[in-house]
């Protein structure tokens, strides 16, 4: 089962090691004729972390840092290029669709865009019942119907609303319908890809509270993908900060928020807009480098205010320091 040689820790629901994901840009006849080089986007470059049972683990970073790709690879919407995925002690990295079937029941996803994540032509009850019926979580349609109504009740809908279509609901309501769908097969693990970033602030709080209530009620573990540090601080136990497909710092929430070590984490925390303080100075200039041509050295070197010469040539590895892992030559 576990061919990584590492011991599986039964406390972990998910163990990801050295996960790599790349995309090749479309390469047509014309490109071949003109001899244009093939372009490969290095989206995720050897990411390792684990999610404990009943825990919220967050991956944080800016757009294009590979956090969503990581989540989508873990739930096997994308085939991993290399690395291993251990789910509930099983190595699912190379599972066929048929082998994935029982795993699918246990790992579901909450999506970012409440307007695109529900099939506009399905009624709410069909949306929630489809996974149940497919996985025989209910003996017949009648039982599925009862279960569906119970789930809708949990996420805050009245029974008569089950007959409506998605467009009759607001963004926050749709997100709750998406959560009900994710819960339909009694999963133990949910990957939530920016679940509140498309929502209004007041609705954001409702959805976050709901997600946390459900964790207690259904004994869920979450992989929480987000760019908003204040949201992450509120929900998570541990987190990893991603930059250009690498995890640059990873550990317990309080350690990282109280004393960030990596210059990128420091910058993110410094510029996160909050009500209680004004941003003193903007520590970062420039933009994220292209994931097509990865820098040889530290991925963050081009924007780092504390760059040294070694950073240009050697890529730092994650090292344990002060109760967390950090990849930086400063330490």
């Amino acid at each position, binding site marked *: 089962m576990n061919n990584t040689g590492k011991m599986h820790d039964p406390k972990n629901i998910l163990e990801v090691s050295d996960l790599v994901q790349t995309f090749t840009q479309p390469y047509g006849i014309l490109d071949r004729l003109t001899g244009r080089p093939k372009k490969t986007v290095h989206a995720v470059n050897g990411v390792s972390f684990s999610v404990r049972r009943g825990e919220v683990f967050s991956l944080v970073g800016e757009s294009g840092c590979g956090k969503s790709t990581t989540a989508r690879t873990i739930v096997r919407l994308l085939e991993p290029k290399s690395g291993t995925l251990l789910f509930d002690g099983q190595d699912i990295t190379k599972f066929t669709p048929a082998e994935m079937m029982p795993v699918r029941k246990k790992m579901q996803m909450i999506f970012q865009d409440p307007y695109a994540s529900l099939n506009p032509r399905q009624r709410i009850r069909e949306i929630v019942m489809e996974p149940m019926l497919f996985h025989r979580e209910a003996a017949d349609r009648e039982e599925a119907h009862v279960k569906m109504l119970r789930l809708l009740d949990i996420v805050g809908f009245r029974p008569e609303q089950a007959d409506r279509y998605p467009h009759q609901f607001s*963004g926050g309501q749709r997100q709750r319908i998406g959560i009900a769908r994710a819960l339909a097969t009694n999963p133990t693990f949910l990957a939530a890809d920016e679940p509140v970033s498309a929502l*209004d602030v*007041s609705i954001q709080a409702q959805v976050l509270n709901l997600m946390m209530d459900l964790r207690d009620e259904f004994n869920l573990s979450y992989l929480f993908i987000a760019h908003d540090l204040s949201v992450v*601080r509120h929900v998570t136990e541990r987190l990893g900060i991603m930059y250009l497909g690498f995890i640059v710092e990873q550990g317990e929430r309080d350690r990282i928020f109280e004393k960030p070590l990596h210059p990128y984490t420091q910058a993110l925390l410094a510029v996160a*807009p909050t009500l209680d303080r004004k941003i003193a100075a903007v520590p*970062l200039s420039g933009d994220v480098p292209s994931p097509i041509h990865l820098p040889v050295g530290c991925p963050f070197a081009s924007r780092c205010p504390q760059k040294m010469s070694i950073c240009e040539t050697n890529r730092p590895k994650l090292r344990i320091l002060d109760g967390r892992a950090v990849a930086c030559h400063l330490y």
Partner: protein
Amino acid sequence: MAEYLLEVKNLKTCFELFRGTVKAVDGVDFTLKEGEILGIVGESGGGKSVTGFSLLGLIDLPGRISGGEVFFRGEDLLKKSEEEMRRIRGKEISMIFQDPMTSLNPLQTIGSQIDEMLALHTDLSSAERKQRILDLLTEVGIPNPADRINNYPHQFSGGMRQRVVIAIALAVNPRLIIADEPTTALDVTVQAQILKLMENLVHKFGSALILITHDLAVVSEMTHRVAVMYCGKIVEEGPTKDLIANPHHPYTKGLLESIPKMAGARTPRLPQISGMVPSLFDLPKGCSFAPRCSRATERCLQDVPEMRLLSPGRKAACYHPAGMAEEGEGHE
């Protein structure tokens, strides 16, 4: 010389749709002094963007401005012809939009897009314009402006594009800039850069700025005053610091409390505003916020509260404002 640069009185914009008439902006009043930065905040459907577009007369059918006055330097913009408004847009008032990709023409170099603005609204010679473009690009922090001037928008990153948009907005030194969610599409590290840049430039050029956003944290970062909108109305207005420290309207208070904090103790649950924004087709009879409000009474369900002065410089439209000095709940 008028006392205010901009004085908006009872502005109303509605959209006549198949399902009925939507009052997207319903009697909005506010003022803006020269050089002042005003934030308009609210959630989707609050009417903040429509307010911004209405000021410039950029409302297309099925929408129309159905009433009110917009005095800009003493003249009512709503009485101007389309021809006159075209001269005012860009020259006197310019706008920065959320998505820099759609507000720039993808087929035109950024140099010529700035040049277009200058040629239209100034008498500068071609050489002077060139120099001015270079100055502007330097000003907004684009490295090697002489090389970048001939680049197309797609050759810039999101943050750099928004800098170009800001350069265009500032090109002819407008008195007022309306920025509609200017940093929403950007990453936090870039957002911080752009906000700082806008704050500095507005100060340097002496323009006034209306910053429309859903993000109270962004507002608290750089505005002098803030107006909170809910369902087409301004429900609270006041100096930013004061308002955020001590919100009077229960909606403002709820919004502020529901934002997770970056420091201090964590609460297991976030305080949340219950329910959801009502449909604009079907607004409640009294105060639009009453059905979600923990302080609401019978009266709130019946009558629509007017904006009134609660403390110096602080107005709110609420019968039972929070955070009043004596904290007398029934105080009116």
